[in-house]
């Protein structure tokens, strides 16, 4: 009995902090989303689902959902495929792995602010390295961050540069856990490399693929920092994401009710994605 109470006392502080930092804000957001609450005008009155209806009528919010979904899907797909390809490459019998792996993981060690500034220099229209290479190869320079069609995909590119290493690491760990005998058996049976991949590597890696997809789609869905630092949602709202929309309504225009409603919609979307992934990866 005595050790039991000690164990509860030891858990209590971190449990309290976790509840306070996760559950309390969620309930708070849900509460404020039902009110018309604006700090600037001082308005505070119950309005039911009015804020939600207003949100869904706001074309900017719809655009931000569209952008977020496009970004999340393309970035997750690109990073997962690239990470898998690099992991398979590095997993071959080659020398120098102890130098290659640290170099490949390097991008993930920079903070987002540093990464964004680095790429802003690189993608600069007049002086950037990327446009220099394009001109050198005889192509037209591209307005990476200032064109409506390209800006979102430039951010996909930057995110891919930064986060592919993590996908690579998870896949590499997964590949290392596959017993060598399976590959030796495949060689004895005379299986082609493609057949080896589809019959051994892919099924054995399935849980890792599910994990990477889950982590990356949740993280890309919350995209805020890169957009805020690089384009600020522009040009012409073509890179506006849900997080940025919430930030602007809540902390720039101080419309807390609307921002809370938007946060709650975003939370529901993220929960839906994660439950979908977890269900499918546990069931399979």
């Amino acid at each position, binding site marked *: 009995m005595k050790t039991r109470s000690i*164990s509860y006392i*030891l858990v209590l502080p971190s449990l309290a902090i976790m509840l306070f930092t996760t559950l309390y804000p969620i309930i708070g957001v849900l509460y404020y989303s039902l009110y018309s609450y604006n700090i600037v005008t001082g308005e505070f009155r119950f309005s039911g689902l009015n804020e939600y209806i207003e949100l869904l009528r706001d074309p900017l919010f719809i655009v931000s959902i569209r952008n977020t979904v496009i970004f999340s899907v393309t970035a997750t797909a690109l990073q997962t495929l690239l990470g898998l390809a*690099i992991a398979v*490459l590095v997993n071959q019998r080659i020398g120098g792995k102890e130098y290659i792996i640290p170099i*490949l993981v390097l991008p993930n060690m920079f903070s987002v602010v540093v990464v964004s500034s*680095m790429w802003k220099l*690189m993608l600069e229209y007049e*002086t950037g390295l990327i446009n220099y290479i394009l001109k050198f190869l005889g192509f037209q320079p591209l307005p990476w961050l200032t064109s409506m069609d390209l800006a979102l995909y430039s951010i996909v590119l930057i995110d891919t540069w930064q986060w592919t290493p993590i996908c690579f690491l998870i896949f590499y760990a997964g590949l290392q856990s596959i017993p060598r005998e399976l590959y030796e058996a495949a060689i004895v049976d005379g299986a082609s490399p493609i057949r080896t991949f589809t019959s051994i590597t892919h099924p054995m890696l399935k849980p890792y693929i599910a994990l990477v997809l889950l982590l990356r789609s949740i993280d890309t869905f919350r995209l805020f920092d890169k957009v805020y630092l690089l384009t600020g949602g522009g040009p012409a709202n073509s890179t506006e994401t849900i997080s940025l929309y919430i930030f602007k309504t809540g902390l720039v225009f101080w419309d807390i009710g609307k921002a809370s409603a938007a946060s709650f919609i975003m939370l529901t979307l993220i929960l839906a994605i994660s439950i979908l992934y977890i269900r499918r990866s546990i069931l399979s």
Partner: protein
Amino acid sequence: MRILEKTLIYIALGIIIAWTLMPIYWTINVSLKAGLEVYEVFSTRFSIENYVRLFREDFHRYLINTAYLASLTTVISLALAIPASYSLSKLPISDKLRRGFLV
């Protein structure tokens, strides 16, 4: 055949490493230039003027702040997490709480 395969793998890895290091090279390159030389892609003249200017401002203050913040966060989260993880894994405690906590 084996040699050809290996060469192809190394070429592919070389491209990936170049892609990884390119922004880092570029940032260092730009940081070592002064004035209008920023516009040159490959230059042989270097100056540490930018770094000198950085530390003449209050940059060391920011470094100290960051280190302070990082160590404080580590200490606090360890102080909270170690007892909790010890009691969850070693001491008797209800399974319901254990599972709920991990979520």
